[in-house]
């Protein structure tokens, strides 16, 4: 029973990693209705920027916000420079651009900072959280930041004019134009925000998995899985989905014997496919009814 509890808590703390990333995935999905394969690499690159700023002697209280802001403008610029010129190209060409961005960021990070792991200090300090052996301070901090980010996102979309405009632009671009919303700007803004959220996620994840150019490779996949499981249109669902994926993966690895340990990723993925087949809109997603 103690093992079970430990694995669940540990699942929650790895789940927090996925949840962070899933939040960024949902953000970009809202803006462009795509899964951005380069999202993880963008987050990794942002984390390197934060790390570099700290290595140059900036305190983390300055370095982290600065990295997040730089990431925001970076995301905004990517939309403007890379995607705007090809906005009418077929979907698959966009996917190829995602792959290209993935490759560029991964390789560039390795070129600049090389491929050995770097430790990133946790802003929340180290050691157990409130004397618990189950949860570290960083894990607790990470879960808290994820939830705060979720709340902030919710408030942004619910109570601000720009948030409302972004929702409108995503829901119905044509009508959005008809009320005077600059839809293209909203899309770029979505990129910027997704990139900024990704940066926060990266900075939170790096102390757990260590910073290196490939650190997001599998985390992004789990992030996708969490987002899809929870429903791509629902930030809360995505966060819950992320936690669920973490827990499922841990329990499968612990209780399904050798096969479970060898295949825990596959089992988690298979489960997600099953959910999708049963409920294509995700556990918490809204079903969109279409009339023919």
């Amino acid at each position: 029973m103690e093992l079970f509890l430990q694995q669940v808590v540990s699942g929650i703390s790895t789940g927090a990693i996925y949840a962070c990333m899933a939040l960024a995935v949902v953000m970009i999905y809202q803006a462009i209705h795509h899964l951005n394969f380069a999202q993880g690499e963008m987050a990794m690159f942002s984390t390197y920027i934060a790390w570099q700023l700290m290595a140059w002697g900036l305190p983390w209280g300055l370095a982290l916000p600065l990295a997040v802001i730089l990431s925001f403008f970076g995301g905004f610029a990517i939309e403007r420079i890379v995607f705007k010129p090809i906005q009418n190209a077929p979907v698959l060409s966009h996917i190829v651009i995602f792959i290209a961005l993935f490759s560029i960021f991964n390789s560039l990070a390795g070129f600049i900072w090389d491929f050995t792991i770097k430790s990133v200090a946790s802003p929340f300090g180290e050691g157990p959280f409130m004397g618990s052996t189950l949860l570290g301070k960083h894990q607790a901090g990470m879960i808290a930041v994820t939830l705060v980010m979720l709340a902030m996102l919710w408030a942004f979309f619910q109570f601000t004019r720009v948030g409302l405009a972004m929702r409108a632009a995503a829901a119905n671009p044509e009508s959005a134009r008809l009320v005077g919303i600059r839809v293209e700007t909203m899309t770029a803004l979505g990129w910027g925000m997704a990139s900024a959220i990704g940066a926060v996620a990266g900075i939170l994840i790096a102390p757990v998995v260590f910073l290196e150019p490939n650190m997001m490779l599998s985390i992004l996949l789990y992030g996708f899985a969490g987002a899809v499981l929870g429903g791509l249109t629902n930030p809360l669902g995505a966060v819950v989905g992320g936690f669920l994926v973490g827990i499922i993966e841990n329990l499968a690895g612990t209780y399904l014997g050798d096969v479970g340990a060898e295949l825990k990723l596959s089992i988690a993925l298979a489960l997600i496919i099953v959910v999708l087949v049963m409920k294509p809109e995700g556990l918490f997603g809204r079903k969109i009814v279409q009339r023919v």
Partner: protein
Amino acid sequence: MTDIAHTDHRNPGLTAPAYRPADAPRRRLLSGGNIVTLLVLALLISIPIYSKGFFVFQMTQMLVYAIAVLGLNLLTGINGQFSLGHSAFYAIGAYTCAILVELGGVNYMLTIPIAGIVAFGFGFLFAFPALRLEGLYLALATFALAVATPQLLKLHAIEQWTGGVQGIVMFQDTFDVPVPFGLDMDPGVWTFYLTLFVFAVVYVLAMALVKSRTGRAMMAIRDNPIAARSMGISLPYYKATAFGVSALVTGIAGALNAIVIKFVAPDSFTFFFAILILVGMVIGGVGWLQGCLIGGLAMLYLPNIAEIFDNVVLWFAGLFGFADLLPSGNALQQQFIRLSGVIYGVILVLFIYVAPSGAGGLIRAIVSRVKRLTS
């Protein structure tokens, strides 16, 4: 403005359509397309005559990749279903071949069709859950398949057949592919011709399929599923068939890959390879099967294009006289190799800028412009 102004824009004189019987479809032997096809075929056949072992080997690889691109294109380009998981079917083909040859003692040439059939089975079965998924969700499900493939291949329980993480080394005793029929031929050249033959057969059959009733039904589903249903086309049947056929072709490519490389291991079939096939297909042109050779070339050369960048830069440096500023020895090449991912990515972005619909779209645009200019 109170008076009523009548303005009539109607054209006088009605033209009812005249009944002119249309010709049956014209099948000219010497059409532009056929000439190009023959030229390419001649070029391919002559490769071993004017080039050495390594280039022949590379071209063999290219043909294998081209078959894989063709397979994916049958699913995505013809039927409109996404897949980021074709490395899985490729792996199934490769392992089927390797296991049958090494453990079953089956003739390697025979394993090629068997690998195709096995892959067809997997593809057809995978299609059933996939039928419920569309677009993005299907892409994600297939991506999951690609990610899980190396893990499944390493699985302890099937290690006695798959060789686990060690994989399977093929042609243990002879080392090289045995050349049949007592032919006095270099095994590399023989493998090339075998691959070319399989490629040609697969290509011809795929073209025939696309131009047949089945192919039309698949394309109809891609263009407009609702209208397709109204034409009496069963969506589940044709979507599953497309998945199966696509897996079959990709599985054949996998089997050939095993024969060419003579080694299969889980690390050969990661999701990176699935993405590589996808990139190859987009570069060749989605829905344009002829583009598979261009896709194969892209898969072969693009990932390592950085290797020649130092030559390019040195050439420019010589031209503009800044050679002294460059690092000496192979330091420059080293830097470019470290940047290979950046170079690959930038080239992809530039390519999509120039040809948003791949080489196929570009070629069609050029051909139609030339036609317009000449007519």
